[in-house]
């Protein structure tokens, strides 16, 4: 996991060499605070960026599987750390680099998983914290952000609703491939997506992603009821 991350950071940093400008923040929109005692926040100084990076390292310590490598940003993390997205050209370049990381199923089997396993993975938000002993057996945390089974009340709303996924979107090759790719590395489709890079980041295995695919596409899955 950690080495995968370091490698990824290195590769992606290399991929966008010369894009230093996208690390620079645009001035975030300021909202005037209502209280009389308050002054307007200081403008972000030009020299703040190195200080932020230093702080995001120095204020943390390694604990178990959560190493300090996690405090180093890779290309998309760096580019997407402001209230405003990078320009379209930068987004495209980042997305192309992420797209190249997607591993398509070796045997062409996209949806042949077990939707019941997929349901468990979708419901579990476990894994990869410093209280987890190993970097394996993680949940997908899908329900944290998405509606899936129409009968589930406790569903997040940060992501789009996935209720009736295959019923609404069909099962064309295009939809199936897009979904696999999105699950593997969401940043390939939107560099600043809020969604974790499940396959690329080693959060879920290929087999787990196939189970989640089944949960989304199987006609028997509660998602499509």
């Amino acid at each position, binding site marked *: 996991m950690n080495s995968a991350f370091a490698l990824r950071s290195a590769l992606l940093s290399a991929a966008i060499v010369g894009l230093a400008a996208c690390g620079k923040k645009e001035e975030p929109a300021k909202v005037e605070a209502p209280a009389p005692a308050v002054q307007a926040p200081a403008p972000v100084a030009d020299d703040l960026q190195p200080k932020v990076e230093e702080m995001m390292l120095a204020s943390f310590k390694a604990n178990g599987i959560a190493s300090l490598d996690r405090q180093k940003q890779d290309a998309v993390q760096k580019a997407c750390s402001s209230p405003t997205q990078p320009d379209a050209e930068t987004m495209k370049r980042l997305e192309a680099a992420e797209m190249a990381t997607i591993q398509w199923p070796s045997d062409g089997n996209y949806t042949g998983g077990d939707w019941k396993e997929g349901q468990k993975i979708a419901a579990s*938000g*476990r894994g*990869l*914290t410093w209280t987890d002993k190993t970097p394996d057996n993680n949940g997908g*945390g899908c*329900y*944290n952000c998405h509606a899936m089974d129409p009968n589930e009340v406790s569903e997040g709303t940060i992501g789009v609703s996935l209720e009736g996924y295959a019923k609404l979107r069909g099962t064309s090759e295009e939809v199936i491939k897009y979904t696999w790719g999105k699950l593997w590395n969401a940043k390939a489709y939107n560099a600043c997506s809020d969604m974790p890079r499940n396959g690329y980041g080693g959060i879920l295995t290929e087999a787990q992603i196939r189970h989640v695919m089944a949960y989304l596409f199987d006609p028997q899955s509660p998602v499509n009821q």
Partner: protein
Amino acid sequence: MNNQRRDTLKAGGSLGMLGLLAAVGLIKPEMAQAAWNKDAFDAKDMDAALAAVGAGKPAESAEISITAPDIAENGAVVPVGVVSKLPKTEYIAIMIEKNPAMLAASFTLPEGTAADVQTRVKMGQTSNVFAVVKADGKFYMTKKEVKVTLGGCGG
């Protein structure tokens, strides 16, 4: 701030205190012997729980009301209040249909104490909450469904 807490008597806290408290009349000796209704609290279904508190098959009554949220943010703490307008209400029990042990709490109300109690209970899942009331020697009940949700990242 409320300063009443400063008047709080700092008593009790250990096994040995029990006898002492009984001796100074703070609690009755029989309390120390635990008349706790084990059968009722161990009951695994509604019929058994009702039987164990001596309620048999209580009639539904609109004179009893349950104050509980329609939907709870967490099942570990669900506020439940029971008010009975039945004359001579002397006993109130709170039961949670889908908990492994249904009976959560029971209250015996001497004359002069209002039939109006509130507490907080654990609920493992969405379930009916029952209020069982004994008034003038007879048992009555009502129910209300409380939905329980899950929150947080789950990590």
